[in-house]
């Protein structure tokens, strides 16, 4: 049995009980920031291109876009390559790995008369439910075809649940073209 040690709560002295000193300290901090803002010396005034009236960015007039780091994880999206081939072959590994089960894929066969018939398989439907997506990037990591990437898209809004589901067309629109990837389906394949 563990020994129970009783601790005594520290007693407040008269000054502390009045709270006036603490209030004054707080007011000083606010005042300091107010002076900095008015004089244009607040934190992030230049770096974040803020209005100069504080560290708050004036969204949506001002945007994050130019300040996003390379590793930023925005909306997951599908990409095409130099040859305008849709890279996804609907192997459904992202659907399998997705922790919140946001991805739903319906695979289909590529018809024999298609330019890329040798790839045999592509998604007929590819839906990502953005109300579920947690931007973890596991889909990007698991993809064996370098087809899905988390892009710098962060403005995802909608007025209904259906609006928040990105379908295949929307995903390719966000993803766009990505060059310099491994060309697995080359002429030798």
């Amino acid at each position, binding site marked *: 049995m563990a020994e129970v040690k009783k601790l005594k709560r520290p007693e407040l002295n008269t000054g502390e009980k009045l709270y006036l000193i603490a209030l004054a300290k707080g007011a000083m901090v606010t005042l300091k920031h107010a002076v900095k803002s008015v004089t244009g010396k607040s934190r992030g005034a230049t770096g974040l291109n803020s209005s100069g009236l504080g560290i708050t960015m004036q969204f949506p007039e001002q945007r994050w876009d130019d300040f996003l780091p390379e590793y930023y994880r925005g909306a997951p999206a599908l990409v095409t390559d130099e040859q305008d081939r849709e890279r996804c*072959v*609907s*192997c*459904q*590994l992202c*659907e*399998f790995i997705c922790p919140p089960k946001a991805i739903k894929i319906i*695979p*289909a*066969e590529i018809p024999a008369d298609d330019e890329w018939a*040798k*790839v*045999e*398989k592509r998604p007929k439907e590819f839906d990502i439910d953005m109300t579920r997506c947690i931007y973890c990037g596991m889909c990007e990591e698991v993809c*064996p*075809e370098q087809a899905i990437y988390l892009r710098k898209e962060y403005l995802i809004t909608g007025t209904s649940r259906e609006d928040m589901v990105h379908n295949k067309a929307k995903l390719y629109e966000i993803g766009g073209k990505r060059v310099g990837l491994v060309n*697995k389906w080359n002429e*030798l*394949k």
Partner: protein
Amino acid sequence: MSDTVDTPKLPKDLAAEKGLVNVQIDGHWIQVPRGTRMIEACRMAEAQVPHYCYHPKLSSPGNCRMCLVQMGMPPRLAPGAEPTFNDEGFQDIGWMPRPVIACANTVGENMGIRTQGDLVKKTREGVMEFLLINHPLDCPICDQAGECSLQEFSVEHGRGQSRFIDDKVKKPKNVDIGPRVNLDDERCIMCSRCVRFMEEVADDPVLGFTERGTHTTLSCHPDRKLDSNYGMNTIDLCPVGALTSKDFRFQMRVWFLKETNSIDTNCATGCNTTIWTRGNEIYRVTPRLNNDVNSEWMPDSHRLAFHEVQGDDRLTDPMIKADGTHEVTNWQIAIEATSDALKQFEGSEIAIVASARQTNEELFLTKTLAGIVGSKSISTVPRMGEADGKLISADRNPNSNGAKLIFAQDDPSSGLDTIKVGLSNGSIKAIIALGEDLIDDAGFSHDELAAAELIVSTNIKANATAQASDIVLPSSSFAEKRGTMVNVTGRLQRLNQAVQAPGNAHDDWEILRDIILNYTGEANDMYMLEDIVKVIAQTIPAFEGVTLSKIGDQGIQLLETGVTIPLLEKEKQRVENREIVG
């Protein structure tokens, strides 16, 4: 003093008395039957040996070389020398410097097998490297991914990286070799399982190898197609993604699918199956090993029959006909209407058309219902076809033997003509049809049905009977319910529920129970299928002591009908001839 010394018996003598031999596997001595294949002996010792071409139901050509293990025997003695035995009574093993294949060699007395160690590890790594040299990087688009031996053994025994810098050999891809099977030659590892299956089991040798060396290609006979009704078994046999199903092609990755053990209900053989589902959809049905029913095979026609229960014509709600049109209602009203309508008739005026597609539990409740309403006319519908000399039975009803036992009749379908006559002469005025289409299956004419004053039917589909019925009660298909059936050889087998019935459709036995309870006004004492199984076990002598758990996944022999399954007889013959392991 006596000369006889009481020498203790050696392990080899003790084993020989029982027809066994002593084998040392990975350092442990076990006893296995004489003539056992080395790979089977390793399996008994729980030392798994990876293999591709070996299959216990097929001959062993030993061509994939994946099952190489290290083997040793006692060294051959010099002339006149006596064998020496160690403390345990075994001779010392002289290990051979070269590996041997475990699939086609049999064990011998005092043999040693090593399934681990440097030699075996290097051998497997080498074999994997050769197998993967020309293998395409198709896993993302390959239907076999997830259940592919090449993937599994590549992870377990492969070297991880390819040293091959030349271009891979190109072979035909996406080849149409049959109506139900697709071939990808680049993925093929030339194990020849499919070739042997078509020759030895399906008796339709249309597959073979052409070309030589790295260009060896699996091909179909130029004038033929792989169109045998057993062709799809090659898909299950194929350890890689060379042979894939056209029906299942790109439908779903296997790792999403849930497996449910069940049985096939398209003929009296009752092949053991696995139903593969995701959510509430069936994606495929594959055969499951049962050496007393279907070995490991299944006819294609039965395998693809599950599509019938996934159509848009499924009934989802109970309906009552009013002024010539069916109106959707709820179960309570439909059941009350049924029992009220049945009470309008004398017992002799009611006929029940039951079905040998019903489970034993449903048949039992059908019989109970007949007793309660006082009906004397009760019959199943015969469904005869042609036997194919392999697995398909001439009787296409899955539970004819069950109907015989439950109804205690030699031919439960004999009363069908009497019901037809009764309808024509007006002695029968009401029909309860359970799961059978009266027009297409039972052969009633539209005029005969028009003569009936009341038709109540349970059905899964919107067919002609449902159209003619006054009360339509939607029921469940084979994949949506549990139950038991007795197959053609008298084996009691179990159906398991893989998916939910669509809409408000109910389990068949629940519908029958509700009608009975509503008719009699008694309180319910049957809440689960197990409750009926218990009652059947108590009332019908043949079922004495039967419970669902006793039946298990492999079934139990309930009675001896004397009927045999031709494919199994052929297989037994081949095991006796020592062509296959079985």
